[in-house]
């Protein structure tokens, strides 16, 4: 039944149509479109659901027959060149299709409720559909050009969605930062693509791999150049998947609405980098140096993300750093050659993280009416606590997500993460220990987030400040913080920055002000938001069994690697030996995980040893009690490893300075020549005007004087 493959274009095309229709209507008939908003939402959900059903069909087909299917059209062609676009379906693609469409549909259903009070409700659905379409196009790409095209398009959608609330200055900065950082990755990706086109003369994956393989075997290629190109190519995934040097955009991207954080910045788009490395795996595999770089970048990212996540007070930013850390795991897995484990973690992480983000969205949605709509209030964990009592379903699903992400047995991420840790131990002990320590850190920060948010008592009400005038309150809080801790001056700056931001929200909030006094406790979100949470717990619980090793204990014998097998024939697999060995390895990592949870419980748990009126008190007492080393670590983590600050100084200010000096050069040197020439001509004309006074005697004087000088020159010239 190859029949279905011919209709695969429907999968990206349907959401695309939805977005175009909504966009055009919104532009030309804004009022009527906004009044029919529910219909547009249902329309886009419906079209995406059809795409989802198709993807499931394709996945089923792939499991059954394992045929790699290609369909190509000519795009740019003449007698010499022929660039194609089309579709490529293989197990990797089909898995990604299902992943994107399922999370996409759930996020759309969720957003219907989450965004219901937002003015940009319809616009949001247009962007969301456009993003899904581009992401689906990306995973279906059969060649590097198409990858690049959709790569940029998803970047643009991410830009639009981060800047969705465009009146917020922080969102405006964040979306620009995200786009420019991603553009740096695209710069590398484009150069890498061009480089490999130069080497092999093709953009098509299959031809490219084959030719490159032949070239490497026959030593016909300059290996330095090939490595250089591969590294440039890898710059794309580094930026898109928020790997170490270019990770700075991801936490800021949390300025976007929370459903976006779940879909784009946790489950799908950031996984595009992993997808690309997986897609080009046969290429990278031939270059061991690049593979080492990939694994190290992954390991550093995993560790860095985990350490920075330790002290974040913002709920979404904490989760964002955790995403970064988990993406590092996947990259590490790919770098050490365990393709299957990396992809497996991609799938399990996507569902678990989507669940966590949607859960956090649910929390924010119910808390924001109490504490205010500014992101550093409604997302601040200092004001939360004990929410499980008020919103039990969100709390429990969030806990399940946390279990999964920490890698506690039957949950999804356990299987994948354990596989990665085991494989990295086998590859090198340094990488193994990094991944093991990171697992412990993951457990710590995830449970810190959970305890601070859902356990203990609700701190909003403990804090005896009435939340009637959010702006002035922030002024008071700033003062408190200044007294208590001088190190937090950066935070204060941010707060002042947000005061302007607060004004715009105030107008929106006016209707809620009356409610605020009554609504002292958060409420559970409505069913439309809970439904996706409940659905997502299913994959969080069960999808791990896809990659769980069979008890019989052959090497690489799990469902997932059987599906992926055709993609991945040549790679040498490093998989754990048998069930027993697997169990032993698991005990090793589990002990680390549980110690992480234990520390988190002591510090932040409901019956903790420290007083916990406000989070900052905890942190403050921590800083007093522990020695300077820990306080250094705490500050390092709190200020995001100071990386943003240095980037700001070096790159942003540097570019600005360079631009200004060049502009000065352009204005005063290049244009200065022109203007100077003009002025010179002007003065010449003026002076000649005065010379020509009209007096004959003056002319005669000039004539004779000139003749004398000439005579002298002639005379002396003749002498010498």
């Amino acid at each position, binding site marked *: 039944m190859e029949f279905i493959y011919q209709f695969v274009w429907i999968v990206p095309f349907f959401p695309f149509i939805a977005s175009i229709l909504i966009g055009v209507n919104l532009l030309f008939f804004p009022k009527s479109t906004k009044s029919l908003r529910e219909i547009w939402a249902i329309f886009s959900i419906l079209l995406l659901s059809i795409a989802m059903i198709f993807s499931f069909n394709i996945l089923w087909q792939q499991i059954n027959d394992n045929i790699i299917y290609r369909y190509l059209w000519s795009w740019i062609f003449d007698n010499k060149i022929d660039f194609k676009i089309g579709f490529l379906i293989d197990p990797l693609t089909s898995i990604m299709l299902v992943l994107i469409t399922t999370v996409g549909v759930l996020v759309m259903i969720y957003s219907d409720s989450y965004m219901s009070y937002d003015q940009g409700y319809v616009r949001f659905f247009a962007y969301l559909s456009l993003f899904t379409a581009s992401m689906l196009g990306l995973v279906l790409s059969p060649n590097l050009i198409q990858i690049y*095209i959709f790569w*940029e398009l998803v970047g643009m959608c991410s830009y639009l969605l981060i800047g969705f609330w465009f009146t917020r200055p922080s969102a405006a900065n964040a979306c620009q930062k995200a786009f420019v950082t991603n553009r740096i990755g695209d710069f590398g990706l484009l150069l890498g693509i061009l480089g490999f086109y130069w080497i092999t003369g093709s953009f098509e994956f299959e031809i490219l791999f084959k030719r490159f393989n032949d070239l490497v075997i026959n030593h016909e290629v300059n290996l330095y150049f090939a490595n250089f190109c591969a590294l440039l190519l890898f710059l794309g995934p580094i930026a898109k998947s928020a790997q170490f040097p270019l990770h700075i955009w991801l936490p800021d991207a949390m300025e976007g609405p929370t459903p976006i954080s779940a879909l784009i910045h946790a489950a799908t788009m950031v996984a595009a980098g992993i997808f690309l490395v997986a897609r080009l795996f046969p290429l990278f595999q031939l270059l061991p140096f690049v593979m080492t770089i990939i694994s190290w970048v992954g390991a550093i990212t995993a560790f860095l993300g985990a350490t920075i996540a330790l002290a974040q007070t913002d709920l979404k930013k904490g989760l964002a750093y955790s995403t970064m850390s988990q993406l590092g795991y996947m990259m590490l897995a790919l770098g050490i050659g365990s393709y299957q484990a990396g992809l497996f973690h991609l799938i399990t992480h996507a569902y678990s993280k989507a669940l966590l983000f949607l859960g956090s969205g649910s929390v924010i949605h119910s808390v924001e009416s109490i504490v205010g709509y500014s992101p550093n209030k409604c997302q601040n964990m200092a004001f939360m606590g004990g929410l499980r009592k008020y919103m039990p379903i969100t709390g429990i699903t969030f806990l399940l997500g946390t279990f999964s992400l920490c890698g506690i047995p039957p949950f999804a991420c356990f299987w994948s993460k354990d596989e990665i840790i085991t494989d990295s131990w086998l590859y090198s002990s340094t990488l193994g220990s990094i991944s093991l320590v990171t697992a412990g850190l993951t457990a710590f920060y995830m449970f810190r987030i959970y305890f601070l948010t859902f356990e203990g008592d609700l701190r909003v009400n403990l804090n005896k400040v009435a939340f009637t005038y959010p702006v002035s309150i922030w002024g008071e809080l700033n003062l408190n913080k200044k007294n208590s801790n001088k190190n937090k001056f950066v935070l204060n700056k941010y707060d002042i920055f947000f005061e302007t931001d607060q004004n715009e929200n105030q107008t929106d909030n006016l209707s809620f002000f009356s409610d605020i006094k009554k609504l002292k406790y958060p409420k559970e979100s409505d069913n439309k938001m809970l439904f996706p949470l409940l659905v997502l717990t299913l994959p969080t619980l069960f999808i791990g069994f896809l990659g769980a090793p069979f008890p019989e204990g052959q090497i690489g014998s799990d469902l997932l690697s059987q599906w992926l097998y055709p993609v991945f024939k040549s790679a040498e697999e490093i998989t754990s030996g048998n069930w027993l060995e697997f169990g032993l390895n698991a005990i090793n990592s589990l002990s680390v995980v549980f110690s992480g949870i234990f520390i988190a419980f002591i510090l932040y748990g409901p019956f903790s040893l420290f007083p916990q009126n406000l989070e900052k008190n905890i942190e403050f007492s921590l800083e007093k009690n522990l020695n300077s080393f820990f306080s250094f670590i705490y500050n390092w983590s709190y200020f995001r490893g100071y990386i943003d600050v240095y980037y700001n100084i070096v790159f942003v200010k540097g570019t600005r300075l360079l631009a200004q000096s060049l502009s000065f050069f352009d204005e005063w040197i290049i244009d200065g020549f022109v203007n100077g020439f003009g002025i010179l001509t002007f003065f010449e004309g003026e002076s000649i005007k005065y010379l020509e006074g009209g007096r004959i005697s003056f002319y005669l004087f000039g004539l004779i004087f000139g003749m004398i000088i000439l005579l002298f020159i002639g005379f002396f010239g003749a002498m010498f």
Partner: protein
Amino acid sequence: MSNFPWLTTIVLLPVFAGCVIPFFPNKGNNLIRWYTLGVCLLEFLLITYVFCYYFKFDDPIIQLKEDYNWIDFLDFHWRLGIDGLSIGLILLTGFITTLATLAAWPVTRNPRLFYFLMLAMYSGQVGLFASQDILLFFFMWELELIPVYLLLCIWGGKRRLYATTKFILYTAGGSIFILMGALTMGFYGSNQLTLDFQNLSNKSYPLELEIILYLGFFIAYAVKLPIFPLHTWLPDTHGEAHYSTCMLLAGILLKMGGYGLIRINMELLPHAHSIFAPWIVAVGAIQIVYAALISFSQRNLKRRIAYSSISHMGFVLIGIGSMTDVGLNGAILQMVSHGLIGAALFFLAGITYDRTRTLFLDQMGGTAIYMPKIFTMFSSFSMASLALPGMSGFVAEFLVFLGIVVSNKYSFNFKILVTIIEAIGIILTPIYLLSMLRQMFYGYKFSKFTTFSNSNMDAGPREIFILVCLIFPIIGIGLYPNSVLSLWNSKVSFILSKFIV
């Protein structure tokens, strides 16, 4: 009907139609506006009709030729003809000029002269792209300066006199070299003056002379395109001109330089071109980064877009210098694509100025709430300008990139260097465009705009229509580039076949 002088009709129609304008009754602007718009539209339809029915696209030779003796004594002929190279640009001219006429709707000051000048410019530009005689080429080149000069100095901004003087001195100074070069080429080798492009292309010159000729022409085109050290007239001119004039300047006038570079320098002086090609590529690469960085530090909206035009013209240079099919195709496509995008961006800057009454980016901010449509359109065209895939700019830049990579002419290191510098431009473009958007639209400001919030500040139907007209071809080319690439594909191969020795 095939003997009908179609091209002469096309070239002369606007200017003659414009001559009627002074005789119109003095009863307001509406009649003149509609009349001009009608003429522009008719002309555009005529161009499309002629090209559809009388032009064979797969033929690289000059078609629809016409040859009338004009001044016998000088052997000055009215020689017209089109090929794949000029057809795209003539279509672009028709399209942009029609839209610019529509964009000039709010002009109320001395409309007769204004619309006459628009029509005269139309003729001059079409005539330039259609001329097959080097002296006629020069004639058209100069002819088209006069309307621009007047449009600038009567309808310009505050510093218009400085800008106009600069513009006219630069361009007139540059075009002297065309005249000298043209006459040298015409007189060389025979007693009789040959000014026909085709005869000229069969002539061969001693290398030294060819180099001198090449440099002479190059200066003229470098002013027009503009190329790096000779670009400073452009920001001033664009900063001061009315936005409809800006559309013409950015959309068509700049492309005359690129067209001349291909038509004369590449076709007629191939030896010198193969010597200078690396320099052109190097200058192009520098220009991309240089202009992009300067654009980033501009506070004035129009000057920022003007510098972005300069930066984008760098791609044209690299494409021309790459000496490959792909690269040259990309260069021509970049001219067309930038013609559309640049015109749209200047139009948007103009209509934003009409509403905010300021061009300084730091005085704007938070306007997205009051003009969501302009915001949407500005974002879309900025995305097009930063070469977002799916839009024409991406295809053009990608082809140029590919052109330099597959070129056999250059050494390995040179190619790597040029490609990397070029790609740095790709990073810088979003920086200045997006920060422009951010400063204009994002954020929130309690400012004078809030008082307007009740009245309708957003773009009206006429403005939306113009923008939608501009975005259609951009997306169309981006989705299926072969639709326009096929126009000049065979011509490009024909030009490059001369370089294969």
